[in-house]
């Protein structure tokens, strides 16, 4: 049994009431790396693919240069790195090579000039080729893609490349700068490549986001993690959410009558991952029950370990005591509320896209209330504002939509606010 990862399970309530109906319970499963793993860092094989089209002119490209300088300073001399820039055309300004050997890289970055249109697939294609060239299982292989605009006519090519990147185990972190980029496309690129996507709301945010992306990649020590939940008879899974590092609906696949599987992908060395599982419990007599067993299997390329696993039991006590049944775990309640806000917001955006203005407005208002309760005044305001925009014009604003979409994912990144 491997002890690099520890699993802990906490329920939103340790006691569930004995009832004559099914009831829902939330189980928080935390996957926590041990100290040795927490201190481990991956060597990186990193490709930057940067938009230098005309719209990048001014503050954007200046911040981008700063961001590159800082990101590179976070890398080790033996880390592999390449830089590809694109507008209508693409050009590799630094071929994939150890950072130590990259003479004049800083000058090349400083020499970037904004101009021209946007043909993202060309940049992706060249950039991926560079990363693939030095691909190493034991490295964190990753592509960082930054764009500030719509790409013209080559969306399907971008998606094809993203899918190939995923197949070659090169996740793409797609960053969209400002308001005028296609979030559906970047989200899909992130998803298909098993990477992610994020919003860079203002030029100033490029610098921290680049650094974070590089650091996250160095900390992606645990790979190919997947969780299997073995449920006892009568227990039915409903939803599986990732709550940290960011909120996401992970979904699940039934693999046997009572077993479900969820892909967890990479795990952060320090943070690990926290999963919130919604389970429907059957009726039972009072007493203690093990309703499920969770098992996480994973690889640790730096240690040469594959298919290690850790497990944890999920126990619950059925009670007829009304007092016991009222006890809740406040930390988990806070997480559930954040997931609820995320869920309402996601459904609101889906419904707005479907043209269901009334439904979307109502969901946005509901999300705003939740966000306000959570102390997220900024986001609550954005949700409220978009509800009004919808009501008045039948449309949401691009910036508001992006803000809601990308910021609500990160609700759990702040410490739970229990002061109230």
């Amino acid at each position, binding site marked *: 049994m491997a002890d690099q990862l520890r699993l802990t399970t906490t329920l*939103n309530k340790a006691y*569930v*009431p*004995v*009832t*004559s*109906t*099914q*009831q*829902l*319970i*939330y189980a928080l499963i935390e996957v926590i790396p041990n100290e040795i793993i927490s201190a481990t860092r991956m060597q990186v094989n990193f490709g930057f693919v940067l938009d230098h089209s005309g719209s990048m002119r001014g503050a954007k490209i200046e911040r981008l240069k700063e961001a590159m300088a800082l990101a590179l300073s976070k890398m080790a001399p033996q880390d592999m790195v390449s830089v590809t820039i694109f507008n209508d055309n693409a050009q590799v300004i630094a071929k994939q090579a150890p950072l130590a050997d990259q003479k004049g890289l800083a000058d090349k970055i400083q020499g970037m000039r904004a101009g021209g249109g946007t043909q993202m697939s060309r940049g992706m294609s060249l950039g991926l080729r560079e990363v693939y060239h030095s691909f190493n299982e034991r490295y964190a292989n990753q592509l960082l893609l930054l764009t500030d605009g719509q790409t013209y006519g080559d969306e399907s090519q971008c998606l094809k490349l993203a899918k190939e990147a995923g197949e070659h185990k090169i996740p793409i972190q797609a960053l969209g700068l400002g308001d005028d980029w296609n979030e559906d496309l970047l989200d899909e690129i992130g998803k298909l490549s098993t990477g992610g996507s994020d919003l860079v709301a203002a030029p100033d945010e490029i610098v921290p986001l680049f650094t974070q992306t590089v650091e996250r990649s160095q900390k992606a020590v645990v790979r190919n993690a997947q969780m299997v939940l073995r449920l*006892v*008879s*009568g*227990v*039915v899974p*409903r*939803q599986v959410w990732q709550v940290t590092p960011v909120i996401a*609906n992970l*979904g*699940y696949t*039934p*693999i*046997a*009558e009572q*077993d479900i599987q969820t892909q967890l992908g990479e795990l952060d060395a320090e943070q690990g991952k926290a999963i919130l599982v919604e389970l*429907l*419990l*059957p*009726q*039972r*007599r009072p*007493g*203690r*029950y*093990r*309703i*499920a067993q969770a098992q996480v299997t994973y690889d640790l390329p730096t240690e040469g370990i594959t298919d290690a696993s850790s497990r944890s*039991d999920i126990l619950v006590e059925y*009670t007829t*005591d009304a007092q016991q*049944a*009222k006890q*809740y775990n406040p930390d988990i*309640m806070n997480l559930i*509320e954040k997931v*609820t*806000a995320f*869920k309402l917001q*996601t*459904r609101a955006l*889906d*419904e707005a896209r*479907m043209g*269901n203005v009334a439904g979307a407005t109502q969901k946005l208002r*509901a*999300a705003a*209330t*939740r966000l306000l309760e959570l102390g997220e005044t900024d986001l609550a305001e954005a949700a409220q504002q978009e509800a009004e925009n919808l009501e008045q014009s039948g449309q949401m604003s691009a910036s508001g939509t992006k803000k809601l979409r990308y910021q609500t994912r990160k609700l759990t990144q702040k410490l739970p606010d229990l002061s109230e």
Partner: protein
Amino acid sequence: MKCPNCGNQVQEDAVFCDQCGTRLPRPEAATAVANASTTTQQPAAEQEQAAGQGIVPAQEGRCANCGTVNTPGEMFCGECGAPLAAPQPEPAAEVQAPAVPVAPAPSGASRTCPDCGATVAEGEEFCYACGAEMKAAAAASEAPAPAAESAAPAQPAEAAPPAEQPAPAAEAPAPEAPAARECPACGAEVNPGDAFCEFCGAALAAPQEAEAAPAQPTTAPAAAAPTPAAPVAAAQPPVQAPPAGPKLIASSGAEIPLAANKETVVGREDPYSGVFPDVDLSPHGGEEGGVSRRHFKITVSGGQYMIEDLNSTNYTLLNRNRLQPGMPSPLNDGDEIRAGRLKLVFKVR
């Protein structure tokens, strides 16, 4: 209501499944189904719980803000996000014991789960079937002694097609007697009343259904039967007489028997991902024919057989008409079924 693609419980008015993203059917079509089974997801679980579950009482889980009825235990209203009241224990509630005992692995000392009757190995802290805590109390096992050393534990992975009149059944007394019977999917010995086979996880016929089933005493195990065709049946050591129940006939002429009174999932066995359909089409060219691991299922109710595509990759065709996933269609004697490229003919007997 449930998502027809992945079975996820979704809000009544949802347009997309938030689990798998599938576009959901219009509510009016789904209402009837939703009412029938408020919260269960898996067909087997439905059967097993239909009796005790009933409809969620109106006040339980009702949102004070917008009136939406949520699942009891949910913390926030799915519609408006308002916090919900906690469900209260119902001391008066007649909570029935989970009727889901599963056959044990008869290895070494064992005890009987006080809650569901499953036989649990000594030293286990919890019942593997219903999850009840096993008190360290009396180890006295009143479980029916596992008859003989059935071949079961040796071959959990072998999901051979159902041979529904196993030899032991011939000697079995009335169905209500606690006698052992076999799993139609893998042949493992299971207890009457078990909902799932412990070894292969296949859903087992409910006891009452078994009663209704015409008891077809088989002849003595080996001797008599000439065992025509059926290379599948050969996978099972004790060769049976050709079953007289419903069956699928492969293009090679091989007969694949189906269980008479239960749901049969037909697909392609994949031990790697732990998928063991009741009927495995691998020996009949399932892999090359593009058969999904869970391709289609055949159910029977009131003497009428139904076939339902389980969202297979390469579709199920009934008499050359493509079936809509999740929509059962009547299946009659002599009908042609195509699973991917694999052709089968359905025979009632």
